């Protein structure tokens, strides 16, 4: 599979090779691999059921991979609990966001990791840092960080969830379909935010169905096909057609899975 990885963007911060994961008799991930670099957006694409979410949950430690090599910042690491990935600086923004509607923006951003002074919550420090983080991401769409999340639009919620993920010295942020439920204008805002994360030096993995989104912000594209990595290619040297072919048949020209494997996967 290494021959399919054509990015030469320096040392990847995250590098996975030969990952396998089965649920009982179902072999969901077959020898998959992926690289992600600091300062770059790596898109993870694939049809429904290709294994994207399973792959990401494994990276986050929600499931343990059955086998394979998991390297982070050049070192082989073991991640089979969300706390371990968080300790490495990996944050995941799940599709269902997991925000509390009845709490405000600051309260959500610090949920479970509240800043305290003695017994009491340090509200001013948290509000300041939330504002600084949002300012650092050039977020100007929030009227007040003290408004309840229930009053926010879908795009604003996504923004809060993303800002929450970068609050903790994170190095790698993984976004699962962040624009799936958004309208045109809000999609645009979120994509700009995703780009800004990478421009601020973070490594970003973006799961998406939308080829326009992918080609707009991604530096590298990794296509999964029926649980295998079809190819990971440079986004600038590819086209929508090529990505769609990789997603739907696992091959595109001389890129992708060997014909035998692509066929076998279908069978």
């Amino acid at each position: 599979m290494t021959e399919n990885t054509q990015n030469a963007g320096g040392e990847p911060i995250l590098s996975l090779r030969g990952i396998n994961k089965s649920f009982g008799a179902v072999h969901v991930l077959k020898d998959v691999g992926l690289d992600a670099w600091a300062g770059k957006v790596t898109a993870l694409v694939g049809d429904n059921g290709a294994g994207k979410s399973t792959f990401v949950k494994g990276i986050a430690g929600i499931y343990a991979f059955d086998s394979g090599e998991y390297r982070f910042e050049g070192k082989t690491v073991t991640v089979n609990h969300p706390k371990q990935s968080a300790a490495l600086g990996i944050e995941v923004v799940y599709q269902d966001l997991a925000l509390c509607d009845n709490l405000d923006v600051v309260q959500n951003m610090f949920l479970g990791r509240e800043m305290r002074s003695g017994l009491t919550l340090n509200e001013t420090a948290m509000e300041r840092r939330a504002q600084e983080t949002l300012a650092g991401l050039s977020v100007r769409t929030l009227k007040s960080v003290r408004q309840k999340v229930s009053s926010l639009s879908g795009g604003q919620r996504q923004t809060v969830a993303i800002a929450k993920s970068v609050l903790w010295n994170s190095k790698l942020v993984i976004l699962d379909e962040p624009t799936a439920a958004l309208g045109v204008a809000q999609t645009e805002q979120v994509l700009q935010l995703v780009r800004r994360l990478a421009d601020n030096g973070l490594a970003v993995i973006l799961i998406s169905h939308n080829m326009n989104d992918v080609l707009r912000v991604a530096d590298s594209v990794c296509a999964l096909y029926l649980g295998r990595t079809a190819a990971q290619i440079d986004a600038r040297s590819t086209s929508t057609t090529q990505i769609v072919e990789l997603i739907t048949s696992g091959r595109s020209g001389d890129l992708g899975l060997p014909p035998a494997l692509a066929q076998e996967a279908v069978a």
Partner: protein
Amino acid sequence: MTTGTAAPSRPSAPRRPEDSIGGTVQAYVDKLRGGDVGSLPAILGFIALVIFFSAMRPDSFASTRNAANLLNQAAPVIFIAMGLIFVLLLGEIDLAAGFTSGVGAAVLVVLMTNHGVAWPVAVIACVATGLVIGSVMGALVAQLNIPSFVVTLAFFLALQGVLLLVVGEGGTISLTNETILAIMNKNLSPALGWVLTVLVVGGYAAIAVLGSISRRKADLPVTSTSVTAAKVGALAVIMVAVTILFNQERAVNPAIKSLKGLPLIVPVTLVFLLVLTFLLGRTAFGRHVYAVGGNAEAARRAGINVPMIKIVCFAIGSVLAAFGGVLFASYNNGVSPTTGGSSTLLYAVGAAVIGGTSLFGGKGRIIDAILGGLVVAVIQNGLPLITQKSGIQFIVTGAVLLLAASVDALSRRRSAATGR
């Protein structure tokens, strides 16, 4: 700060429209429009009911003696409701809270009257009984995932049985201890009443001012001084009026025994209000309670120990209910097999919901129990002065509870529609 983020510009605190009095009023109106009516129905309902009963029964209802009695009547239900708010915030229910208070009262009275135990030990035993009841119910709900409706219904029945066995069918056990009886029967001296008023208003003002100072220091938006002053002023007017009212002589025959001053239960309730409001509003535990009630899955992913939060909330609920039992024992001079029974639980749930706590979880404050409890007490106190038919009293209370629950459900639907 975030890794590699370009030096973030320090956004200067923008002057929000809410900063002026007009802006604050506008923001409040917007909030009401958005479906978040908070405690407004309780406050308006209380005023309307007081005016109604005063007009109907100017002699019996609108007297300072009756007002003092009303506060004492309200207190046990208010305490049970304060405990229920912790459980309701989770989106759960505790149907056993009424009989938890009954069993708490029984433990207290039996220990003191039958076994001569000192009052502090008896109160600790009573509170510990609540702690055990609540922890067990909480563990069954949180660890075994049995719906709280079922667990607490089982406890409702079982505790009713325990009360019957301990007190004995048809019997009552009386309490003569001066200290316990004082809680619901004694008053602050008029001078101490004024000290309390100064402490409450001064304390509230100090918290508001200190909060503003620390926010200004951190360059964060601050509520304008005029808004803070208006709030402090309103509280001062209410406290002074209440103190003047209760400092009047209200004995039937003052020559024999003078009766004046704020009922002792007032400062007791205020202390609980302060401590519990602090717990819910200013500590990580409180924040996590709201989070679990708002979105348990989000709370779990944020690393919050959701089962532990649930168990602690049920335990706090039952401890406060048991303390409500102490108040029942003090008010009734003892305990009977029906203490905490009949409509006690419904009154307490009604108080919380009327006060603005949501039955759907995630929304509610301790003050709701007091505001709603006063509304319930006015109905409980005023209706018998108008009609002797207890059937009508049940129907009216049921209708008020239903009305409050409808307001809760409608405001929830409205806030979903307006995205608030």
